[in-house]
């Protein structure tokens, strides 16, 4: 199993000027990223299951820039059809990381259906992502991260990660967001020089 924070530290070294949609990994990523203006942490989270689709929309909107999403397996299986849409549209700048901890960590660690048996990289490959990878050790990931970020996209990278189970009442959990969602949007649009962004 991979520690999410350690994986993100490795990824940061290869991130370049990619837009990053960190999802649940945002609690670590906001302390690791050196390009916050290109990060899109959305807290409170808008609605479970839409993170990959949101990042996919960003990738279509900004085809000349890499877009990386850190998705989670509970969210992906909620709307698995996003794989087919991505495969059909073939965005050449879309890098779909899946952090698979085999459970719903933010609700106390209940298992995701078929958690240990589903091979998400195989699903992505069979639906039509041209590049797919799967890792369960940090060393293997670190040795391959440059190759996966230069592989033909859309690319899908499935990572088995250690669950960081949260069981405290929501009101008692650490607040990690440093910007409002409006600030996140405005910072991104300023960085991308999008005229007339709301």
């Amino acid at each position, binding site marked *: 199993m991979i520690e999410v924070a350690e994986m993100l530290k490795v990824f940061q070294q290869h991130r370049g000027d990619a837009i990053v949609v960190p999802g649940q990994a945002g609690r670590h990523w906001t302390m690791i990223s050196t390009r916050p203006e290109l990060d899109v942490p959305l807290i409170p989270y808008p*609605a479970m299951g839409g993170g990959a689709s949101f990042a996919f929309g960003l990738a279509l909107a900004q085809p000349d820039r890499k877009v990386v999403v850190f998705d989670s397996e509970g969210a992906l299986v909620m709307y698995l059809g996003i794989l087919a849409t991505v495969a059909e549209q073939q965005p050449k700048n879309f890098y779909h990381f899946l952090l698979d901890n085999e459970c719903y960590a933010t609700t106390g660690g209940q298992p995701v259906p078929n958690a240990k048996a589903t091979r998400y990289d195989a699903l992505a490959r069979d639906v039509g992502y041209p590049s797919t990878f799967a890792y369960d050790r940090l060393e293997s990931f670190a040795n391959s991260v440059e190759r996966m970020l230069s592989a033909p996209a859309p690319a899908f990278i499935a990572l088995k990660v250690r669950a960081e189970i949260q069981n405290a009442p929501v009101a008692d959990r650490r607040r990690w967001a440093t910007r409002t969602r409006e600030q996140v949007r405005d910072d991104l649009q300023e960085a991308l020089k*999008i005229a007339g962004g709301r």
Partner: protein
Amino acid sequence: MTQTTGTGLSPAAILAEIRKNGVTHVVWLPDSETNGLYVLMKAEPSLRLVPVTNEALAFSAAAGLSFGGRVPLILIQNTGMMDSGNSLRGWAIDLSIPVVLMVGYRGWTRHGVTRDSAAVYTERFLNAFGINYYLIESDADAERISTAFEEAQRTGRPVATLIGDEYHGFNRPEATSK
């Protein structure tokens, strides 16, 4: 008996409004009313069609497109809209996405008598979410689509247009040349 509004609604009139308002991407899932429009949109070089497998994904994809500086249109049926309330709330309303929804109004009849609960609950659903909407039944109504785009931009909220012409020929191929 279905009442008619005279001229009916042509897909060409809808497409003209889509072009006029600078739409770049149509995020959509087919419904019984829009195949004629699909044929026209597919041939329109200024549009990219983005098919989704579930209407909920349309709202998050549209939010990403909007964050990235594009102008999405969401084209879905009322049934799917009602299926995706949480995504509409979180990805469109809460993120202040100025997006227009073009919603096939399955079951709509002008006289108000319908056996289709999809129609019965459509406007109640939109009212529950506080989303303003405009009914489009004929070519004469098409300019309400521009009104919806202007309102969405001004308010930073989704605005709906309800396509209420299922039984009048909107979906017939010959209607595309009206």
